């Protein structure tokens, strides 16, 4: 019996292929966008995990130079002799590939491909020209290193491992070490670190470069976008399922009258939907793979540029990801179909068999009330909510409330537009448009969400870009940045600067606990570079004058928020030295606290820190000459970075980020356009009884088609008008609530009216394109078909 019933149920889709395509395509697109984003995130996280497994990032305590410079090899030897179980690491980049030098005999077990008792040939690794371990794609990008390349799939993406001696030679940094890994088991008899090397500092595990934590913001935004896109797709699915169930009410009644038990019928309908969901989910996951594969190189470049995180540029097929894609397709279908199945379960056998007017069951008043309640809840959470969960709840309430508010608001606006209509055609047009809203409401809600997501995310990303470029202008005010290898080179730089630069600004810093959180303490020289360029989020009057007099400190926003500090609060920057906060500055993307003190005070407090990095101010036209002079003095080219190149690189990173968000924006909008197209096509047949009398009264089919096209554009324009405030509210929520709760810093929000205008134009174009085919079909409807309406009525 089940087979007979299932074949009857499935016959509906055979007779209504457009509905089937709508359902499958909606679900496939939703799954594709969601699983595409998830694939990118999963690939990135797998890369971080591979990096952690390969390099021990975040697993072990580390020892670094207090000034951030290199550690001499002799210091390492002294530490080993002093009883410290430490292992040296050096890092650098060759042709963009991260080259890591390890010392396999002292490195912790399980770190890198060369493991004690492993299969690797330790002798070959250590001796002669050595070996370089990397993934095959990474090895192809490396130049000829005069070391034996060994393919190692376990090594992190874009990373090559070799012996520290080989790395020092390849990086031209003989005798230098970047950091020391501190092994978990240390002899109790070892001498204190401060005795052997007072200029070194030990940091606990996880305090260092935890890439996953740094990139959380980026992945969170991608996930939010994926979820929104999925929601847009689900609106299509719900529309298609709702329509199919409505149209099958007579069939359901007949099946039951012919002896099909209700429970079996519901079960089989659920099975039918599950089969369709699996089919669509499979297509969606495959599409998602294509989307992810297309976007991953840009995402990888963004992550590398913004956070220094190396992510594989090629996608791997992961079973978990396939399964989760199918799972979300099934879950989404269940969610979208739950209402229809519930109403079927409660449908009396002898209820009216004719399809109810679409969506009429949904009480307009009830929907408006729920929308209002959700929007109020969202406002309340914005005002009084606390924590990330409250932030996401606020976003959810805002978006669902906004979407639910759309149909009642459109109804109000259209009623208002109908009043001044003079001609009969205009009057009919507005009244008919109002009548179409329930049938189109799901597609319009999808368009609303897609546009709001576009406005919200592009506002957030553009605000981030504007803020970050302004931030770069503040921070990268010096025309040239130079790094010295040692104190002698630092003296050389000072000497060259005296003759060829307008000013030399030493970059001095040290790490320590401040106000209960790990922080970097920086020294600022009293110079116009800082006074002219730095902007404060909040400050006392004349903060730079007071800083120069040593009367206080400046702190970054992260410290201000996390340590709950205010202007005037005292922070202890060294034993017995407490100073009030004079100003708070933005410090975007940085996870740890920062404190700035005046240079003389810093030198008093930390005499052991010597400046090895410098910012050099110069006339932009004289930078080339300054570089030449430094080069002549023996400073290698690689130690110099000019401001223009740094900014160029940072902006290039943003352009890649924009490629990703623009692609997702366009895809989401395309999905919404598709929703409109499918709604119009499926409604076309149901509209004939409404159009036939108007045609019979004298309006040509072509006029009716033109009016239908206009109707779609008008509805899209009204939706766009409502999407703009919703999108701006979304952007505000992301910037001012979610970002602050998640990462401790708040981005200022900027408006981009031209972008919004362009987006509105795109939405209207999408609606017009979506409506053009149904309108064309209407203009070609045979008169006999329109006359059939009157025959059927009789």
């Amino acid at each position: 019996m089940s087979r007979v019933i299932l074949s009857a149920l499935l016959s509906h889709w055979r007779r209504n292929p457009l509905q089937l395509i709508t359902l499958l395509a909606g679900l496939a697109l939703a799954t594709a966008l969601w699983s595409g984003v998830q694939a990118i995130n999963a690939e990135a996280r797998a890369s971080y995990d591979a990096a952690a497994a390969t390099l021990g990032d975040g697993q072990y305590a580390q020892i670094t130079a207090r000034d951030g410079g290199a550690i001499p090899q002799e210091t390492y030897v002294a530490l080993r002799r002093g009883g410290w179980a430490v292992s040296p690491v050096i890092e650098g980049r060759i042709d963009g590939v991260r080259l890591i030098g390890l010392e396999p005999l002292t490195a912790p077990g399980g770190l890198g491909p060369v493991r004690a008792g492993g299969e690797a040939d330790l002798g070959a690794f250590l001796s002669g020209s050595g070996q370089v371990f990397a993934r095959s794609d990474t090895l192809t990008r490396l130049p000829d290193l005069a070391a034996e390349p060994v393919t190692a799939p376990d090594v992190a993406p874009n990373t090559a491992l070799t012996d520290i001696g080989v790395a020092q030679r390849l990086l031209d940094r003989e005798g230098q070490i970047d950091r020391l890994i501190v092994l978990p088991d240390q002899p109790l008899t070892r001498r204190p670190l401060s005795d052997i090397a007072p200029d070194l500092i030990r940091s606990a595990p996880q305090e260092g470069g935890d890439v996953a934590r740094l990139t959380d913001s980026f992945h969170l935004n991608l996930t939010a976008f994926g979820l929104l896109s999925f929601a847009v797709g689900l609106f299509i699915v719900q529309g298609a399922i709702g329509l199919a169930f409505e149209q099958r009410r007579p069939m359901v009644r007949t099946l039951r009258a012919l002896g099909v038990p209700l429970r079996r019928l519901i079960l089989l309908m659920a099975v039918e939907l599950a089969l369709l969901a699996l089919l669509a989910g499979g297509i969606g996951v495959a599409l998602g793979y294509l989307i992810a594969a297309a976007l991953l190189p840009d995402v990888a470049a963004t992550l590398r540029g913004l956070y220094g995180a190396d992510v594989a540029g090629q996608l791997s097929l992961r079973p978990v990801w396939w399964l989760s894609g199918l799972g979300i397709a099934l879950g989404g279908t269940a969610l979208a179909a739950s209402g229809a199945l519930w109403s079927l379960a409660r449908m009396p056998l002898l209820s009216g068999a004719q399809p109810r007017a679409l969506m009429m069951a949904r009480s307009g008043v009830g929907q408006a009330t729920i929308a209002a309640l959700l929007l109020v809840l969202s406002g309340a959470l914005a005002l009084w909510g606390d924590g990330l969960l409250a932030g996401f709840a606020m976003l959810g309430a805002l978006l669902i409330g906004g979407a639910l508010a759309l149909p009642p608001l459109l109804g109000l606006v259209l009623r208002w537009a109908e009043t001044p209509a003079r001609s009969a055609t205009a009057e009919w047009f507005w009244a008919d448009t109002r009548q179409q809203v329930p049938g189109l409401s799901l597609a319009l809600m999808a368009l609303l969400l897609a546009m709001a997501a576009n406005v919200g995310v592009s506002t957030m990303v553009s605000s981030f870009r504007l803020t970050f470029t302004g931030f770069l202008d503040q921070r990268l005010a010096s025309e040239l940045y130079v790094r010295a290898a040692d104190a002698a080179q630092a003296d050389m730089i000072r000497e060259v600067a005296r003759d060829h630069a307008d000013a030399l600004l030493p970059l001095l810093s040290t790490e320590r606990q401040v106000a209960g959180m790990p922080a970097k303490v920086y020294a600022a020289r009293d110079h116009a570079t800082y006074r002219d360029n730095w902007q404060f989020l909040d400050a006392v009057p004349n903060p730079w004058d007071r800083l120069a007099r040593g009367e206080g400190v400046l702190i970054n926003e992260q410290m201000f928020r996390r340590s709950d500090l205010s202007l005037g609060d005292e922070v202890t920057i060294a034993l017995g030295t407490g100073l009030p906060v004079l100003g708070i500055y933005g410090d975007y993307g940085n996870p740890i606290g920062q404190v700035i003190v005046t240079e003389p005070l810093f030198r008093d407090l930390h005499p052991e820190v010597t400046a090895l990095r410098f910012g050099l101010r110069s006339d932009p036209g004289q930078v080339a000459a300054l570089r030449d002079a430094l080069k002549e003095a023996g400073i290698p080219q690689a130690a110099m970075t000019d401001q223009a190149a740094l900014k160029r690189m940072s902006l290039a990173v943003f352009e890649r980020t924009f490629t990703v968000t623009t692609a997702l924006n366009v895809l989401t909008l395309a999905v919404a356009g598709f929703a409109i197209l499918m709604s119009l096509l499926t409604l076309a047949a149901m509209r004939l009884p409404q159009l036939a009398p108007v045609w019979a009264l004298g309006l040509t089919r072509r006029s009716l088609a033109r009016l239908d096209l206009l109707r779609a554009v008008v509805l899209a324009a009204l939706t766009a008008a409502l999407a703009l405030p919703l999108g701006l509210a979304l952007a505000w929520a992301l910037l001012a609530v979610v970002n602050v709760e998640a990462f401790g810093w708040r981005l200022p929000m900027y408006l981009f009216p031209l972008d919004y205008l362009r987006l509105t134009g795109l939405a209207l174009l999408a609606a017009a394109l979506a409506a053009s085919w149904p309108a064309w079909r209407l203009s070609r409807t045979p008169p006999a078909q329109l006359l059939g309406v009157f025959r059927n009525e009789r």
Partner: protein
Amino acid sequence: MLLHLDTVTKSYPDTETPVLHGVSLDLDVGGKLALTGESGSGKSTLLHLIGGLDTADSGRVEIDGTDLTPLDDSGRAGLRRGTVGVIFQQFNLIPSLTVAANIAFQARLAGRHDPARDAELATRLGLQKHLHKYPEQLSGGQQQRVAIARTLAAGPKLVLADEPTGNLDEASSDAVMSLLQELVEETGAGLILVTHSERLAARLPRRLHLRAGQLT
């Protein structure tokens, strides 16, 4: 005894007086009767109770020795599949299935599908040229003949026809009714015909009239 109704009563929440009030009725195997009455007299309600489409408030409905009162949804559905066949005024064909699939449908549900019987019924009812068409491509009379074929193909013991020719003109109505009578007679099934038409009611050997929920 094919059908036994004992003081059956049925009310709806939105009506003050019961739609059916103490209705009792017996029908022998192969018996045929016409049920007439004004609109709202309870004819269709009575038919729905006999067909297990609805349940009585009180009284007893027994078909082929089975009491319908204690049956749940699945039990009543089983009765509709195997014992009773209902022909509706609105035909209630499955729009997405072809004529051939519609004719076979109930027999397949009941597990009694016989393609030869389908073909014979289609020929007798003049549907052989339309087997691959969909219901929307047929006239009202043709659709009603498909509904009759569907019911008879399943071989029910009792056929319930609710205004089966209500949507047809007089000539078509007579033709369809003749075919229905002829085919039911051949199968030996019982028939209860609900109709407004005195002319159609007169074609059956027994006639009952419902007035204000009671048989007269």
